[in-house]
């Protein structure tokens, strides 16, 4: 331990270079992970914030809120199925809104106040009451666009402004800001903005459901689909992964992050391979005077641990500095859980890289210390 620490202390330049290399990779990985988390959170908030156990789509909607359409009259049938504790309704209208002359994309989501599907993340104000028209809850992200309690949001193609009476957090949909209104308001806005939808009667696009305690979601989903005949019921997790691009984004980022960690392992392994080669003579001397292999290997592990922890801390700091200067439009989310997982992954890869140099150290012959070979 004394040796391992002294080597780092007195060979600062060399160790700074490996710590810098690890920090750079950690920085990249943390930014990528924050982007991945930001995209995931920004895309899926609307479904996650409802705390529904599952969603009922029309079978031909292929798990898409936009494509799916269900007669609102079917809601009572769903609610009556054994194992369904609560059922709500959701409808999504992708539109353009304006405040102070600025245009932005917005997802207007119709829901049944008080029923499952309504966001449970109220941050300010109040939710609309059942049947209350032309009022809604905005996602907190709309505050960046100057919207406050009492502001009116006017959708392009609509003459009916919606008054913001509450704010919810983490309720975005496919990276668009959301405005949560009653299903009646949603329907009237939809008829106005998408006139082709008129005349289809009252519809919702999905029925979020909460199952009774002790009930099995798969069994309940099968019962719903069997009773209605034209639906596909999936868990909320499946619904989230079925959102356009979510699964593809997650797997792409995961692949990049995994490759980056393999690079961390390779960088550490190469570094220790090089310094082991350079220190062959010194290691032979230490073995000759009685250092056991385990003492030397522990030293290498301690050094790898210090290099990876220092590299991580530096990379973490750099990523937070970058976050300060990133424009708000870049969807980065730094989650403590992700940071913890990546920290552990960095440590593990550092240890793996160090372990790869063990064989080389074990095979150094202490007899080479004599005869001037070392």
């Amino acid at each position: 331990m004394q040796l391992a620490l002294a080597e780092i202390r007195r060979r600062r330049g060399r160790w700074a270079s490996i710590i810098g290399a690890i920090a750079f990779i950690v920085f990249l990985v943390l930014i990528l992970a924050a982007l991945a988390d930001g995209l995931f959170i920004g895309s899926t908030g609307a479904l996650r914030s409802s705390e529904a156990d599952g969603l009922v789509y029309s079978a031909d909607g292929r798990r898409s809120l936009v494509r799916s359409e269900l007669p609102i009259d079917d809601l009572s049938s769903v609610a009556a199925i054994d194992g369904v504790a609560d059922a709500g309704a959701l409808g999504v209208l992708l539109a353009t809104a304006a405040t102070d002359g600025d245009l932005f994309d917005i997802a207007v989501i119709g829901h049944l106040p008080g029923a499952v599907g309504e966001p449970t993340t109220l941050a300010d104000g109040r939710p609309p009451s059942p049947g209350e028209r032309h009022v809604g809850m905005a996602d907190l992200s709309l505050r960046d666009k100057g919207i406050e309690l009492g502001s009116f949001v006017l959708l392009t193609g609509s003459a009916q402004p919606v008054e913001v009476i509450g704010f919810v957090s983490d309720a975005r949909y496919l990276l668009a800001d959301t405005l949560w209104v009653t299903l009646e308001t949603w329907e009237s806005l939809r008829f106005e903005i998408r006139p082709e939808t008129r005349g289809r009667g009252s519809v919702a696009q999905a029925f979020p459901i909460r199952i009774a305690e002790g009930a099995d979601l798969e069994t309940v989903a099968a019962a719903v689909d069997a009773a209605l005949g034209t639906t596909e019921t999936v868990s909320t997790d499946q619904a989230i992964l079925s959102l356009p691009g979510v699964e593809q984004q997650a797997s792409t980022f995961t692949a990049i992050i995994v490759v980056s960690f393999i690079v961390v392992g390779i960088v550490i392994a190469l570094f220790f391979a090089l310094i082991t080669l350079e220190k062959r003579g010194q290691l032979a001397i230490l073995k000759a005077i009685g250092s056991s292999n385990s003492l030397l290997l522990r030293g290498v592990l301690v050094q790898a641990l210090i290099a990876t922890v220092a590299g991580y801390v530096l990379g973490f700091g750099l990523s937070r500095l970058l976050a300060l200067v990133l424009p708000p439009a870049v969807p980065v989310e730094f989650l403590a859980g992700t940071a913890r997982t990546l920290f552990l992954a960095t440590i593990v890869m550092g240890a793996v890289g160090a372990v790869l140099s063990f064989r080389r150290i074990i095979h150094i012959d202490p007899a080479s210390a004599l005869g001037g070979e070392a």
Partner: protein
Amino acid sequence: MTALIVDDVTKVYGSGHTEVRALCHATLELRDNEFLALLGPSGSGKTTLLSVIGGLLSPTEGTVTIGETALTELSKKEQTRFRANRVGFVFQGFNLVPFLTARENLTVMASISDAPRAEIEDRADQLLDELGLTDRRDNLPEELSGGERQRVAIGRALVSDPELILVDEPTASLDTELGTQVVQLLASEIKSRGKAGIMVTHDLRMVEYTDRTVRILDGELLDASD
């Protein structure tokens, strides 16, 4: 008391046409408080004999006993531990750990041997004082002169209070004057502590500081003279 018995040790490298007999039936005894010079030209087998005595190489035949311990009967792991506690080495060309100070090059033995750290640290300070290195204790090897480095190496060999000191060509990278000083110092440190020591050298001028000289040629111990 007998400090070391080398009994009929043979070391053969390779086999068949490539066979090299580095040591042939070498037999040697060393008493406590005795400093022996092992004198021979390059390739005579003196380093091989030193390696076998230090438990760094296993002999093909024969046994090595240090004190009461049959070194050749121990496992590799046990031999490593034995070296840490009971054998001191002074290597050719100083061979200090470059990123440890003079004092740390001695106290590093606290991590390696079984002796308590406080004991090693006390002995390190005492040795540095005796070796005239107190003022240089916090200097790195690159900041020390050749003679100072060799003195640190002597201190490292003695700090864990071993019973046998093995010295490999201590004058190889020193001029005659400095080399003589180092060997004198080695002899006095070994003798004053009542240790047994073997110094491998090809420099005839250094044997006068030892109690006895054994010559080695082509792996055979030729003669022993008091």
